[in-house]
């Protein structure tokens, strides 16, 4: 792997039965770059992301990443019968983060994220009682709890209101300036200027959009 890259996807192919979804996908992400992948429904965007994070394996090809990765799945993937704070505690333990008020602890980062995305009033609320947008904020926050150097986001801002959308991009810019490589998959790319590179996934291959 080229040390200048936080992610290398090399000739990845994946079929489901006789239906080829990805034919030959190759791209790289460098630190501090935001890469977008767009495409129609069923183009294979989520499949590609699941291969990148290791959720499913490719039929052929290689994914190389050697930095801490944060993944925000498209479908809400949080514990609905736990509170917001308990979800942070659960995932904080999974990332191996300490608790307490020390810098780098999950508790400190939780406080910061709750304020940053304006859902601190719901800290002790069961997730099942939250609105869709607030659930999505939690879904995203859990992906960045450990300050990853590679962030993989599948439709991250669906359900966000305008203000949260703006906050999201401010935060993405901050992470970018700190050297995090960000991969965003979405149906549409609204703000082309925010991306360093945008690909379109079409016919199982990536094309520059």
């Amino acid at each position, binding site marked *: 792997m080229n040390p200048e890259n936080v992610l290398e996807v090399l000739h990845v192919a994946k079929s489901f039965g006789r239906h080829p979804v990805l034919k030959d996908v190759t791209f790289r992400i460098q630190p501090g770059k935001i890469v977008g992948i767009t495409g129609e429904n069923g183009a294979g965007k989520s499949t590609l992301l699941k291969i990148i994070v290791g959720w499913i394996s490719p039929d052929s090809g290689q994914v190389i990443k050697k930095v801490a990765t944060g993944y925000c799945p498209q479908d809400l993937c949080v514990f609905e*019968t736990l509170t917001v704070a308990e979800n942070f505690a659960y995932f904080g333990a999974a990332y191996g983060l300490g608790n307490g008020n020390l810098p780098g602890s999950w508790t400190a980062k939780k406080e910061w994220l709750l304020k940053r995305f304006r859902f601190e009033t719901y800290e002790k609320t069961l997730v099942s009682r939250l609105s869709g947008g607030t659930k999505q904020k939690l879904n995203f926050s859990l992906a960045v709890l450990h300050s990853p150097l590679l962030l993989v986001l599948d439709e991250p801002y669906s359900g966000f209101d305008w203000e949260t959308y703006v906050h999201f991009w401010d935060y993405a810019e901050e992470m970018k300036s700190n050297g995090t490589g960000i991969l965003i998959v979405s149906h549409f790319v609204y703000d082309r200027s925010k991306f360093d590179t945008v690909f379109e996934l079409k016919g199982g291959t990536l094309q520059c959009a």
Partner: protein
Amino acid sequence: MRLRHIQTGWTMTARELLRNRIAFLLFFIIPTLFYAVIFLVTTHRQIAFKLASISESTFLTVSQRNEALIFIGLAAVGILTSFLALNLTQKHAAENRRLVLCGFRTYETLLSKFAVLLCVIVGVGCYVGAMLPLLFTPRRFLLVLLGFMTGGYVYGCYGMLVGAIFKRELEGILFIVLLANFDVGWLQNPIYYAQAQNKAIIRHLPGFFPSQLSMVSAFTDHSFLQPLLGSLGYGTALLLAAMLIFWWKMRIRK
């Protein structure tokens, strides 16, 4: 193995379970109802049966009601724990996988659920067993409690295995209802066993050792070691199979 992960998983799973108050209450109401029905429909007529773990030629003669109370107590513990184990294993499949992606190991996820299941097995086993002295006095009460707990252990591990194999709830429930009805709900009753033609089938079902342990302890002074070890071995084999399948399904490709 990292204890902090298992402890966190145990805490969160236990909190979720305790928040489901209706299900939690049913864990105590259902065995009480089972006992009440048995109490109402049985008499103290003496019945004779043989216990497989003692001798094929030795017949015991006990009260029909007492025999049925032990049998139904074990069935209640087995059925309840297998359903809970199924629920714990199947529920939050995607969220658990995300945890694994974030750093949990698959066996830590399953072990934390198993630890919660063990607590429930002990709680329900003790509760169901503790009601017995109100209805009759088993010969070795503490060993009957142990028998109920091993029933919960074996069937809890079976529930975990079914939950690890099947993604959807319906298939899981059908598999549990099917076996539990046949096994602890019918064939392990010594009255049926005494008359059965193919006893080898009954001896290989999950409820065999726990029911033998409970019956031997309730009505005789014979050794309980063989059914106890058999129960632990059977349950552990099911648990290991569940962990293997769970690991296979949850594994992350590096």
